[in-house]
């Protein structure tokens, strides 16, 4: 099949005209470039276009769900917006928005959408824009302090047919705003599906935003997520990316520290099994002086699953007095699981404290023996150690409901 045919199928027919400029510009670039192949350095290990080409030849478009989706939706917050195949479902959503939060369609922010289209933009982001006809914007007002998290649940439903979804979310935290936003990605159905999400987050000066992405997709789901974050001065941005599966998953998390005295914390956990493939690419771009970034990604890998961690840190020439730390740790539970980890530090400034480290190993035998020597069975000893290991990341989720939810998925996943 020709690449252009594939793209034609993946790009959905537009219904609204607000984005025609962005859409056309993105389509032109992506049609010229095509989806990234293995020759593309950025997607060397995650060759999605091959799977897409092989499987989406007969793709016929999304149809209505065969099953009741409400059963899939966990109760995590008072504010839950549910998207089915990228489209907000009023029926499944439930929210009583607190003061300080407004939600609108993304059309009001079409300039921002247009700005994302460029010769160097990520191919999947361009693909998302090419299909764009709807999306939402969440605005958090100046100085608003939002206690409960806003939860976006994305269900990609392939119960009747193969499905493609291009969710698009824009989050604007105004000056001194504080809030937690979570995005949960799940699936329904046995046919192959492809979720191609784009989330943009703007953190205004002195804001404090936490963003939690939970991927709990099934073995028929392909997923690409582009999360782009801009952080202004004195703002704190916390990102947490947890992944519990999917056929092939790629998370691009890109954070620009644009204002001085800002801070970014990036935590990640991936727990994989069978033939799952999870690829986390992160970029922290220190553009200005006096900023800090801290990154910790941990993996637990079983079966013949494959993990990729690629963490880039840029410290630009102006970004003096930068602290940037990165660490990637992995436990391989099986001899067939593999992890490919690559830190990439590019530093142009000279007053910089920067470090990175990665470790890959098996469960610690001495620790396991110590627990067993006290009467704890081998299986529960393993669970105890894995739980403690993963908790270093998970315990940073401040909201108790979300944290418990993630812990429960973790327990089912590692208890297999």
């Amino acid at each position: 099949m020709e690449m252009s045919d594939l793209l034609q199928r993946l790009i959905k027919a537009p219904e609204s005209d607000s984005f025609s400029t962005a859409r056309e510009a993105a389509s032109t670039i992506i049609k010229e470039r095509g989806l990234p192949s293995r020759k593309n350095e950025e997607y060397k290990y995650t060759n999605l276009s091959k799977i897409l080409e092989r499987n989406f030849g007969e793709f016929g478009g999304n149809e209505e769900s065969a099953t009741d989706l409400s059963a899939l939706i966990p109760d995590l917050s008072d504010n839950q917006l549910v998207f089915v195949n990228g489209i907000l479902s009023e029926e499944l959503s439930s929210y009583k928005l607190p003061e300080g939060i407004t939600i609108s369609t993304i059309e009001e922010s079409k300039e921002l959408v247009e700005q994302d289209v460029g010769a160097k933009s990520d191919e999947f982001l361009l693909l998302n824009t090419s299909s764009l006809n709807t999306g939402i914007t969440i605005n958090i007002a100046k100085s608003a302090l939002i206690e409960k998290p806003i939860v976006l649940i994305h269900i990609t439903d392939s119960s009747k047919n193969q499905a493609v979804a291009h969710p698009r979310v824009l989050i604007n935290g105004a000056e001194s705003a504080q809030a937690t936003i979570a995005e949960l990605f799940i699936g329904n159905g046995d046919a192959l599906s492809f979720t191609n999400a784009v989330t943009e987050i703007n953190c205004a000066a002195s804001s404090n935003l936490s963003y939690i992405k939970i991927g709990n997709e099934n073995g028929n789901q392909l997923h690409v997520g582009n999360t782009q974050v801009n952080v202004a001065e004195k703002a704190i941005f916390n990102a947490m990316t947890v992944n519990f599966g999917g056929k092939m998953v790629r998370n691009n998390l890109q954070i620009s520290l644009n204002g001085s005295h800002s801070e970014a914390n990036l935590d990640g956990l991936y727990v994989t099994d069978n033939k799952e493939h999870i690829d986390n690419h992160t970029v922290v771009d220190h553009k200005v002086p006096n900023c800090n970034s801290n990154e910790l990604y941990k993996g637990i890998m079983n079966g013949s699953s494959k993990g990729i961690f690629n963490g880039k840190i840029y410290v630009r020439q102006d970004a003096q007095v930068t602290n940037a730390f990165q660490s990637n740790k992995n436990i391989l539970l099986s001899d067939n699981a593999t992890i490919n980890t690559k830190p990439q530090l590019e530093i142009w400034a000279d007053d910089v404290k920067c470090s990175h480290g990665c470790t890959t190993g098996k469960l610690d035998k001495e620790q396991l023996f110590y627990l067993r020597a006290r009467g704890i069975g081998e299986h529960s000893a393993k669970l105890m150690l894995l739980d403690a290991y993963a908790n270093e990341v998970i315990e940073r989720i401040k909201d108790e409901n979300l944290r418990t939810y993630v812990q429960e998925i973790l327990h089912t996943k590692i208890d297999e």
Partner: protein
Amino acid sequence: MLKVKNLKASIEGKEILKGINLEVKPGEVHAIMGPNGSGKSTLSAVLAGREEYSVDSGTVEFLGSDIFDLSPEERAREGLFLAFQYPIEIPGVSTTNFMRAAVNQIREHRGLPKLDAVQFLKVMKERMKIVDIDQALLKRSLNEGFSGGEKKRNEIFQMAMLEPKLSILDETDSGLDIDALKIVANGVNTLRSADNATIVITHYQRLLDFIVPDFVHVLYNGQIVKTGTKELAYELEERGYDWIKAEHANV
């Protein structure tokens, strides 16, 4: 309670235990002394079930059954306890949670109902007193950042929680200050009964003033080369091991 017959064990092809014979009866305290590297910790590890060691010959009976048929956790549940010479640090697991899992799995094995959080805490507080250990310490990650003495005290606390039948204390006295030594020894003595037994591995006669052994064995080059009463410990303290080494130069 424990019958070790002609036990030989090796690691990475190197023979460490070269025919150990040892019998421990209920109510007894045995001390094992011996130069560094003679195989004392290896013996305790083999008894506790470390899989890295290969048992090449010999038998070990624990409470009437072949110990090598049991996994490490089954041995512990049957009542074997090893206080580690070097207790392991486990980040992210608190001593409290760890002990609750251990106590309940052992109780399950013994056909007793599990302790709920309140009952467990009550037992824990009681046993904490025996070794004078602080609750704050038990809430922290297991042994992580504990001082040498705190780690040893935590081992004896665990022993108090698990109520073993046979305890092997591998150099529990090293790293303890004189007061802590008395506390730990006192803990061991409090837990002593006619039904349980203790093997104390130590380099110093001093501990044996507090925990008085019925027998003192000298382990040298993978064998028990001498057995006596507590007077033997004084003799070793005075004369060192050269005379023993000389007697067994041909071993």
